[in-house]
């Protein structure tokens, strides 16, 4: 398999956008292409990640549309839909194209514009990823699945609401350092948990999860430029190598899992990614996890191997996952503060890590980061893509 390098990364500010879907994708793509500065190297493949455009924006064939918008003909083009893991899946497809020798330069862009519908419709659109006959039909939504998961997980491992609040506080603080983050607002333990007013400030969404345990619904796009070793050698700037990618699946319905608190797909995808990279979780300097709900940052960090089962919330208490901790998690603000335009999320995680490894993350830069890990969590853990990136010294 041939090596794959990330040489360009860009994104739009996440939030609520008036731009069209393709404009969002184009702006992020142009930012990544400018960052890559490919010169006369043509982009020979375009992969677009998206989950809901067919339903929410009445638009399909996004790969062709983006190629046309950017005049990248006759590049190969396709769109990838894999629920909330669409972004990392599209990235995997782009990597495969280069690793196989089919392409030398690939543009991978994730995009979602979901604020065009109201919250109820948006929640229903995302819920369509659940098992149709035993979950969706009974009104299951992602917040309700996460609520049930959180209750079980907290009961089993002694996690308390204060630990969830610590994650929200950390990620909101990181978000204020990220100009692309949807939410630029710090929150405090008093304001969301301990003050009498916290009951109003932070109302229940799906107990035990409250408002500040849930990510916002966002519009946005993120983009990466991937190239072969030969092309990378011609380009200036730090090189970020795709060291490992792992993907794994689990049962569609959460209740069919032997232990619903065991995120088996995260564990296996991570093992595969680390194995391919020849690395271990201890080698990781910075991680982006899929914290659509605060409980998921805890559970994923354990399943990925960073902490023992039942140990993540204790590490959070010790401040280990803060920007200045031993393993900073979600320096971008995570989905919690950066936002969650579903199809763009997996790409945006890797954009953040590429910037971190290149030393371009500004105020939220993790000093000396050389190895990075991302977990893009699809479905409710039934399709997960894990990625390990490594900075290569030139």
């Amino acid at each position, binding site marked *: 398999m041939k090596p794959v390098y990330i040489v360009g990364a860009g994104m739009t500010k996440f939030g609520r*956008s*008036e731009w069209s879907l393709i404009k969002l994708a184009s702006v992020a793509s142009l930012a990544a292409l400018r960052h890559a500065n490919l010169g006369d190297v043509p982009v020979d493949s375009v992969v677009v990640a998206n989950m809901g455009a067919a339903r929410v924006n009445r638009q399909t064939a996004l790969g062709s549309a983006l190629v046309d918008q950017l005049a990248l003909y006759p590049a190969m083009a396709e769109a990838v839909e894999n629920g909330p893991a669409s972004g990392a899946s599209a990235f995997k497809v782009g990597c495969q194209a280069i690793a196989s020798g089919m392409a030398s330069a690939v543009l991978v862009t994730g995009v979602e514009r979901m604020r065009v519908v109201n*919250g109820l419709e948006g929640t229903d659109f995302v819920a369509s990823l659940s098992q149709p006959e035993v979950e969706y039909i009974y009104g299951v939504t992602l917040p309700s699945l996460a609520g049930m998961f959180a209750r079980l997980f907290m009961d089993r491992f002694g996690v308390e609401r204060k630990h969830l609040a610590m994650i929200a506080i950390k990620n909101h603080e990181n978000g204020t350092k990220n100009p692309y983050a949807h939410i630029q*607002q710090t929150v405090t333990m008093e*304001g969301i948990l301990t003050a009498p007013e*916290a*009951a*109003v400030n932070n109302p229940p969404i799906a107990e035990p999860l409250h408002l*500040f345990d849930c990510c916002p619904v966002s519009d946005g796009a993120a983009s990466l430029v991937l190239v072969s070793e030969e092309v990378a050698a011609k380009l200036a700037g730090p090189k970020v190598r795709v060291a490992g990618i792992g993907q794994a699946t689990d049962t569609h319905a959460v209740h069919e899992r032997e232990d619903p608190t065991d995120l088996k797909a995260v564990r296996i995808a991570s093992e595969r990614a680390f194995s391919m990279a020849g690395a271990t979780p201890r080698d990781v300097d910075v991680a982006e996890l899929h914290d659509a709900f605060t409980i998921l940052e805890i559970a994923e960090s354990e399943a990925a191997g960073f902490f023992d089962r039942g140990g993540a919330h204790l590490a959070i208490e010790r401040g280990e996952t803060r920007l200045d901790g031993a393993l900073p998690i979600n320096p971008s603000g995570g989905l919690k503060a950066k936002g969650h335009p579903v199809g763009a999320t997996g790409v945006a995680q890797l954009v953040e890590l590429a910037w971190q490894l290149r030393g371009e993350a500004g105020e939220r830069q993790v000093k000396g980061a050389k190895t990075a890990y991302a977990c893009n969590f699809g479905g409710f853990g039934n399709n997960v893509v894990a990625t390990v990136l490594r900075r290569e010294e030139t």
Partner: protein
Amino acid sequence: MARISELEASLRPPAMDMPLYPPKAITLASGEQMVVRQVERDEVPILLEAIYPLLWVERDFYDIVAARLFGELLAYKRYRVKDEYVLVGLIDGVLAGMVNGRLVDEKTGMSYHTLTIRRGLRVGSHLFAAKMEYHIEHCGQEEVLIVAESPIGFRRWMIEYPLEKRFEVQHELGGVPSWVLPRDTYYGAKPRLVSGRRPVAEELLRGAERIVLPREETVVRQVAGDKEETE
């Protein structure tokens, strides 16, 4: 002079005795303290200044809420509306939002508008709750007539409390079929939705004596989000 005063008097609606809203302090999610207090007529001009840039913000129906509120505040200042009151939320003295309404009679109140400038901290939710608190607890009214002019308002008031339909009554805001918050429903919702501490610490109160306006571009950015740059 007397003829003018007499004419002016005849132009003014009759007025009831209205209690003052006792100020309260609320800890927001950010940890900041928001003081909620009633404003006097002479403070209306500064509120109009805050509202003015929002007259052209279409997002979330700010334009119509701002335009109607502008007129309602002028009517309050110029004595052309019956028994109106205005409450503001101030964070370190800076205007975070405002609400208004009026008393229809001793038993019934009418909610007018809720306008949030500092978004994302449930400021509007707190201020709307303060407004209901004023009608039910301080004015001793039995019910408040309410409509929403935006989907956000509908979710916040009609669904969260929840309100009851009183569709045979046309609300003053456009003749929209009215909803109502009865006293019992208010007390049922109070633990979830009404908060704040009294008395307010002297220092906090002093900081909220004068209304400070955020800069115009700050107001618009907080309300409508960052302007997207074209590439």
